[in-house]
């Protein structure tokens, strides 16, 4: 690593910004397709999050290592090929580990290629930063994405099937709310979470605004 390259020190915030402040699912609204499509159970959501995190970290590391060698004009194409290679690895890996999971996630594993979070991170972060930063930041964004998916997946599984990670939560008489497992449920639950978070932000923002107002006078 050359000393000429100036970047902020590698601290916990590099990791945390992806988890909370720039959470890809709840704040940036990126990567919506896998977010809604596979979150009909918590375990699927977790598997998808883990697979995406692997691709994020791998492609981030490689893009960061190659950042001086890739000419600017063909960079997007290069990134896409790098990402597609990692996705192919994940695709075969999941097939080898669990066929049931592979069947449940279906084409959405291969569709990780077009997840805009990954290309966005490669272009906006990994291509300009040293290896360590790129890996830590990618891990943070991946964790944030997994958390977002889990939030969605667990709510949909609890309401739609009365279970969490396959374990029954309610008694026999629980009437599952099937629509939550179907496509509309995905839209509704994500919309609800966004409402909750914007309400929280509003509430937290209000005392600040009032304090500033008082100081102003």
């Amino acid at each position, binding site marked *: 690593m050359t000393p000429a390259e100036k970047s902020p020190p590698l601290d916990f915030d590099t990791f945390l910004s992806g988890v909370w402040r720039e959470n890809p699912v709840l704040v940036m609204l*990126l990567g*919506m*397709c896998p977010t*809604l499509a596979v979150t009909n159970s918590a375990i699927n959501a977790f598997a998808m999050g883990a697979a995406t995190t692997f691709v994020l970290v791998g492609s981030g590391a490689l893009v960061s290592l190659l950042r001086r060698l890739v000419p600017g004009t063909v960079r997007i194409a290069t990134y896409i090929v790098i990402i*597609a290679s990692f996705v192919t690895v994940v695709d075969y890996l999941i097939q080898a580990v669990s066929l049931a999971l592979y069947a449940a996630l279906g084409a959405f594993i291969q569709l990780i290629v*077009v997840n805009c979070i990954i290309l966005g991170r490669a272009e906006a972060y990994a291509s300009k930063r040293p290896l360590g930063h790129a890996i830590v930041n990618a891990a943070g964004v991946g964790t944030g994405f997994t958390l977002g998916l889990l939030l969605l997946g667990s709510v949909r599984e609890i309401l739609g099937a009365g279970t969490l990670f396959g374990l029954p939560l309610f008694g026999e008489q629980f009437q599952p709310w099937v629509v939550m497992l179907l496509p*509309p449920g995905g839209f*509704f639950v994500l*919309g609800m979470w966004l409402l909750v978070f*914007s309400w929280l932000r509003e509430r937290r923002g209000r005392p600040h605004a009032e304090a500033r107002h008082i100081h102003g006078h």
Partner: protein
Amino acid sequence: MATESLATIALNALLVNNFVFSLFLGLCPFLGVSGRLNTSWPMGLATMLVMFVSSVCAFAINWLLTVVQLEFLRLICYIAVIASAVQLVEMSMKKFSPTLFRALGIYLPLITTNCAILGVALFQTAKEYDFVQSMVYSLAAGAGFTLALVLMAGLRERLELASVPKVAQGAALTLMLAGTLSLAFMGFAGLGGAE
């Protein structure tokens, strides 16, 4: 080889398994460009064109890769083909309709990362459609995407005049609308062959 009739395939891709409302594909442009009616349908048509071109190319590539037994390169090849098809549409649109080209802006090159397009290519491979079936499938899927985009744009234009609570403005409201539309599209499930 799939044995579904062409009409079933078309109906399936257009309504029953609509790409946006029941397969969750192509949501980024769906949420991004559905703000205005007059940019939503050209965007839909451009996507449809790219889908068609890349579906035809993907069919040829899949055949070639199967012959030389390099199926693990499928994903990389598909992506490369889609990127080129988008470039093609971009160039022709720039030549024939510069105003439209400017109106669509950044969303035009972003068609490359529209998962609906890769989705069409991957699904037609997975379902083993023949050439004609693939063409019908891609056209119907594109039409379904356009339909979703136009419906949504119409609703959102109406909502601009409505007074919405501040917390619900923006993405949350759009998602709720999409959920309601998706609920309506579930009604088509009785029409034809499910998955």
